């Protein structure tokens, strides 16, 4: 059985309390880090090879090193708890069951970049995780872990929770900053990059919740240990969230690089009802879908990139033979159109157009040429937008249409679903 790192404390009673955390050795890593120089902290994180777990997989240590040492404006850490990518449900468990791990990671990061304020941006719908986080912050503040004199070392750092209000785009780092500043969550042009000009104009690091939660372990047990848990350049464990048509959906902490087949068939018990696998999304709805013949891929950043998809947030969505791929594409296109911030032309107009075409096909109004049109529109959106949301719509839609082209064309020709028509799981037929 693979070692549990992040989820080790989840089963403990009162796992979210400071007392439980401390009894488990909590905040020792922070002490260690505070005794080092900030530069040394960054080097250690670089050595661990920790890559951002939010979706982009950017090396965390490198991101921290982009923050200028001197800065007229205060520096900030924004912790990305927006968790809006469909299929993703890992951060809410960390927030509810082990909030102190996040706080400790955040403090280590703040010390490394010499920021004295951190905001944990949590999506507004997560009322219970927000409560747990705020309670943990209160506990930590009362214990002198957060505040003007962290663990008595003289380092000052405050942490606050900032609530979102229903916008998937606020998971994008510059949109998150905009929302944190009290504005519409519309992404900014890059450059300048947040590490140089971010929250309130100051240098800002944005890290995902899961990324930060690994830090205490990295400092307690060493960066080399962490790196060795996974393949080269893809070290550590990963929280894989599996949903959809498997027998045992849920959160699985496994070594980075576990083969997808193993996750689906061993850990999750295979397809429900022992049906055939039809398609699987590897890393959240924005990642191109994989066919059954592609599931021997290792679930790490580099391996997935090689086969034309992405690790994303590690959210695995499994679809069996009863799934109508036209419906899947239509529903996702609808999602991206609904969440588009509306700033730039290709995404604002293009995602809605794609959604309308797919909806029309799904409901029997498909026409010859629709498939080519969809593919062309994806080409005209991808790479031409302010933020990756355009790609997040275009790449999956293209993958569904290309890989299941026959099904799309049959649906168009017959004016109706030729597969399973989304059966009602509670009706006996």
């Amino acid at each position, binding site marked *: 059985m693979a070692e549990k790192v992040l989820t080790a404390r989840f089963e403990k009673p009162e796992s979210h309390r400071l007392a439980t955390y401390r009894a488990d050795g909590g905040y020792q890593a922070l002490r260690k880090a505070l005794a080092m120089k900030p530069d040394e902290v960054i080097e250690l994180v670089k050595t661990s090879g920790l890559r951002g777990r939010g979706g982009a997989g950017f090396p965390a240590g490198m991101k921290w090193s982009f923050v200028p040492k001197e800065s007229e404006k205060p520096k900030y850490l924004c912790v990305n708890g927006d968790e809006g990518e469909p299929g993703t449900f890992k951060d809410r468990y960390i927030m509810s069951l082990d909030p102190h791990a996040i706080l400790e990671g955040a403090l280590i990061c703040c010390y490394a970049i010499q920021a004295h304020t951190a905001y944990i941006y949590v999506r507004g719908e997560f009322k219970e995780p927000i409560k747990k986080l705020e309670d943990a912050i209160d506990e930590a503040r009362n214990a002198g872990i957060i505040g003007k004199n962290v663990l008595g070392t003289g380092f000052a750092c405050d942490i606050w929770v900032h609530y979102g209000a229903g916008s998937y785009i606020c998971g994008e780092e510059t949109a998150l900053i905009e929302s944190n500043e009290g504005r519409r969550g519309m992404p900014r042009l890059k450059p300048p990059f947040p590490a140089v000009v971010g929250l309130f104009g100051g240098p800002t690091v944005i890290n995902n919740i899961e990324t930060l939660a690994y830090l205490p372990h990295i400092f307690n047990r060493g960066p080399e240990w962490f790196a060795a848990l996974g393949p080269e350049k893809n070290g550590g464990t990963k929280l894989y969230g599996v949903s959809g048509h498997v027998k045992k959906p849920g959160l699985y902490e496994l070594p980075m690089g576990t083969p997808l087949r193993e996750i689906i068939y061993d850990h999750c018990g295979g397809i429900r009802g022992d049906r055939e696998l039809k398609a699987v999304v590897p890393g959240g709805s924005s990642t191109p879908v994989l066919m059954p013949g592609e599931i021997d891929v290792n679930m790490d950043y580099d391996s997935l990139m090689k086969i034309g998809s992405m690790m994303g947030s590690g959210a695995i969505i499994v679809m069996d033979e009863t799934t109508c791929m036209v419906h899947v594409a239509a529903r996702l296109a609808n999602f991206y159109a609904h969440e588009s*911030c*509306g*700033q730039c032309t290709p995404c604002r*107009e293009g995602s809605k157009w794609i959604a309308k075409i797919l909806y029309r096909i799904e409901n029997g109004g498909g026409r010859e040429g629709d498939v080519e049109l969809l593919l062309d529109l994806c*080409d005209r959106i991808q790479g*031409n937008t302010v933020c990756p949301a355009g790609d997040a719509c275009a790449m999956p839609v293209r993958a569904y249409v290309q890989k299941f082209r026959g099904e799309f064309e049959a649906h168009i020709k017959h004016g109706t679903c030729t597969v399973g028509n989304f059966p009602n799981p509670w009706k006996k037929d």
Partner: protein
Amino acid sequence: MPKLTIDGVEIEAAEGQSVLEAALANGIHIPHFCFHPLLKVGGNCRMCLIEIEKVPKLQIACGTAVRDGMVVFTKTDRVTNARRGVLEFMLINHPLDCPVCDQAGECKLQDYCFKYGMERSRFIEEKHTFEHQDLGPWLSKDMNRCLHCTRCIRFMRDIAGSEELTLHERGNDTVVGPYLETSIENEFCLNLVDICPVGALTSKPFRFQARSWLMEKTRTLCAGCSRGCNVIAWTYKGRLLRLTPAENAHVNQCWLCNPGRMSFESLYAKNRLTTAMESMTDTDIVSALDTAAGKLKSVPGEKTAVIASRFLTIEDNYLICRFARDVLNTEKVAFVSGPEDDSEFGPSKAPLPDWFMREDLSPNSTGAAHVLNAFGYDLKPATLIEEIENGEIRALLVFGDNFAASMGDVSRVKSAANRLSFVMVTDSHSSTTTDMASVFIPESTFAEKDGTYTNEGGRVQKLKAALRPQNDCRSAWQTVQELASRLGVKWNYTSASQIFDEMAAVVPEYEGMSFSDIPDEGIQTTKEPEPEDATAGTGDNGENVKTADGNAEEAD
């Protein structure tokens, strides 16, 4: 200075410029909607996407800073496809309103579709439409046409200084609008009509009056205040239909205030006078001039007073002064130099960037002062009134000024005028002053004459007639010439240009200048004043050839 290559042509850029700015400054046109040289970068229309060597994705030219040695391509298939994509996306919800849209003919969407776009639409879904909203007396909003470029929002926030417009909702439902149902009445708001690249914001006062390509354009000056904004006067079938800003980085950048923009309406006001009058009765111009000359002969010249005007051109004022000196032989020449009380415009009603409209609501106080000083005329208007009251002055010629109101004491001026044996007034509109005239000669307005004004900052700029004068209207200098001839002094001036060149030889501030050499941007007669508050940005230094909406003319 960084050098970059665009489509094989090497150009030099300024430090900190974007690729788009560098291209436009060198006559290379990269299409764009949301970029405006005086607004913060929007980066949202995506029309200016270009290919840069060694950069995998296309980049927006407006948001990419120039680097020395950069190699840029704007004509590759990738760029062409991206542009056509953007245009197609813009058109899918854009209504085919061209036949009923005022923007037609000066619409960037039309222009780019014609140049870069697709012949047919592939969109067969239902178009997204928006509810109509009334924005008040100035702006007509057609949200269905909006490209969401946010120029209007950036303008209101950063230039007009009044955050009245914002984005509401999101995604494809995004709407541009004010708070609740309030109307936009900011005195700077008609600039939005210029900067909106399509017909989403159009001018209500101008609505539907003429097609843009049917109108004739004349570059001239606004006469609404001493700022001297440069304008384009648009005329059709002998009628002036609108004014739009003309670019002048030293004066008004590319903006106009609402009062100035609408000032042309005075040409058609109810109190416009275009026929000569004697004792308030219409008469023919020749007999009116004869009467005036006759009356002038009957009063000693040195007891005749002349009022010049800050509302008239330098040429008018020069010839008025020559008439006073060489024909009447009088020292009693004055003009009112202070802010106007009885003005067509009045003080601004709503917030205006206070760096913009001037308190002095006349176009040529500075120019008139230069001319009168050169002639040594320094009589104060108040003294002039006293001299009328004590009989020292027996006749009065008032050129182009509502003198009674300018003095701020209408009844005093009226009773003083009653003592005079003769009052002649020239003006374009009736007023308490014209009511006092025994002889009235009508004047051309600013839009119907050639000449020069010098603005508050000391810059002399040219006025060009957009219309021919109606009926008996003429410039004051022509009236003066007619009177001089009847009093035995024959002049041969046929143009404002001729007068200016003669004036330049004797008025020191204009030494060495000639009318035909005055460029569109004008010439500083005195040291250029400090640039104003930074809200408006600094424009460019005039190198770029720009039209009023701030966009470069096409290179081809």
